[in-house]
């Protein structure tokens, strides 16, 4: 009886060993590795076409300015960007909204040369209402042509409350945003009596919505 018990125990052990070998005898295995990539969003100024000359007699730009950008993103989903423009005034070059949209799109360039800085009121006179040369010394308005809707880049309507243009971008990769400032001055914004010689500037900003 004892021998039969021992024999059964031994036989059972062998069966257990045999089955356990089969259970973990995997002959192949797979493993997936993952690297997560977050969204890329950047806007870079092209850096060309940023200087020109103003004709003293007429106030016209001798060559267009081209404040343009490249948007880069890896996100094909719809994203919003805003374009704004400011002109500096006073000694500390404080920024004032510089786009006029009531009768076309114009941008105010303000004199930044020492001792000839524009005033906030002069910029506001060009941007709003009816400009008069006696009220906007050292500020000149020019036609501003923002990048129009193109492909998956859509120019929205002017947001007067926030003084900005919305763009909607719905593609990944690099997208050009080419703006231009050109031509003769906006009527009532240039005069040799009030606009002194110097460097007239404005700053255009394009940024992803936060």
């Amino acid at each position, binding site marked *: 009886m004892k*021998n039969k018990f021992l*024999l059964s125990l*031994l*036989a059972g052990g*062998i069966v257990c060993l*045999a089955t356990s*070998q*089969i259970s*973990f*005898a*995997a*002959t*192949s*295995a*797979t*493993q*997936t*590795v*993952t*690297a*997560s*990539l*977050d*969204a*890329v969003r*950047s806007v870079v100024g092209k850096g060309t076409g940023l200087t020109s000359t103003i004709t003293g007699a007429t106030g016209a730009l001798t060559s267009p300015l081209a404040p343009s950008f490249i948007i*880069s*993103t*890896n*996100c*094909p989903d719809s994203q919003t960007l805003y374009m704004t423009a400011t002109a500096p005034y006073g000694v500390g070059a404080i920024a004032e909204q510089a786009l006029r949209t009531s009768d076309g799109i114009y941008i105010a360039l303000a004199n930044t040369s020492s001792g000839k800085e524009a005033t906030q009121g002069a910029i506001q006179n060009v941007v709003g209402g009816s400009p008069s040369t006696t009220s906007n010394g050292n500020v000149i308005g020019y036609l501003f042509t923002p990048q129009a809707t193109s492909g998956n880049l859509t120019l929205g309507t002017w947001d007067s409350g926030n003084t900005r243009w919305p763009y909607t971008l719905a593609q*990944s*990769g*690099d997208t050009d945003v080419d703006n231009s400032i050109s031509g003769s001055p906006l009527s009532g914004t240039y005069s040799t009596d009030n606009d002194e010689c110097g460097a007239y500037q404005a700053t255009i900003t394009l940024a992803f919505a936060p």
Partner: protein
Amino acid sequence: MFNRIFITIIILLVSTSQAFAARTNSTFLDADVESWQSLNFTGGTISSTISCGTGNLITTIRPTFRIRSNIFGSNVRVSVASNTLSGFTNAIFDTGGGATKYVILTNSDDLPPLSSVTNIKTSPTILGNPNAIAYEVLDPDEQFLRTNVTYDDVNDYWNIEKFFPGTANSDLEIPSGPALSNTFGTNDASGDYEATITISFI
């Protein structure tokens, strides 16, 4: 007299052995251990992040695996595949002669066309491989006097020969660092970039 004693002893001996034979027994068990082999991934690092600014792999990916067998001369193939719109495709390639190997990770959230993988393997151009990024990958670890690793640069996979019965450990390392030039760009959509490693006996 002597014969009687001798016969009595013989009878006693026989009867005694018969008595023992009734209480004990001898059985020979012949259990043949069959050859067996086992493969399994044992952990390591299987996830990382990609810098959205540079495309650099921020931390090293290093899945580990174990080969077990009770025979001499086990051979294991290590291959890697990435998913595309046309299905899985071999994700390993080398720059010639097996010198430097690269693995192509593809976006599992926004699968690339097969041409993205092909573009990287041939001559990568920044616009030609959206949603696929390549990184250098090292040969699987070799254990001194236990395993030998070779690379098949025609079919682009590794073979690991394990010399002896027992256990051998290895891994496949994708070191942190820059993406292969012209394989990362803003046309690589955000998401999880993946590759699947398969180890199998051959």
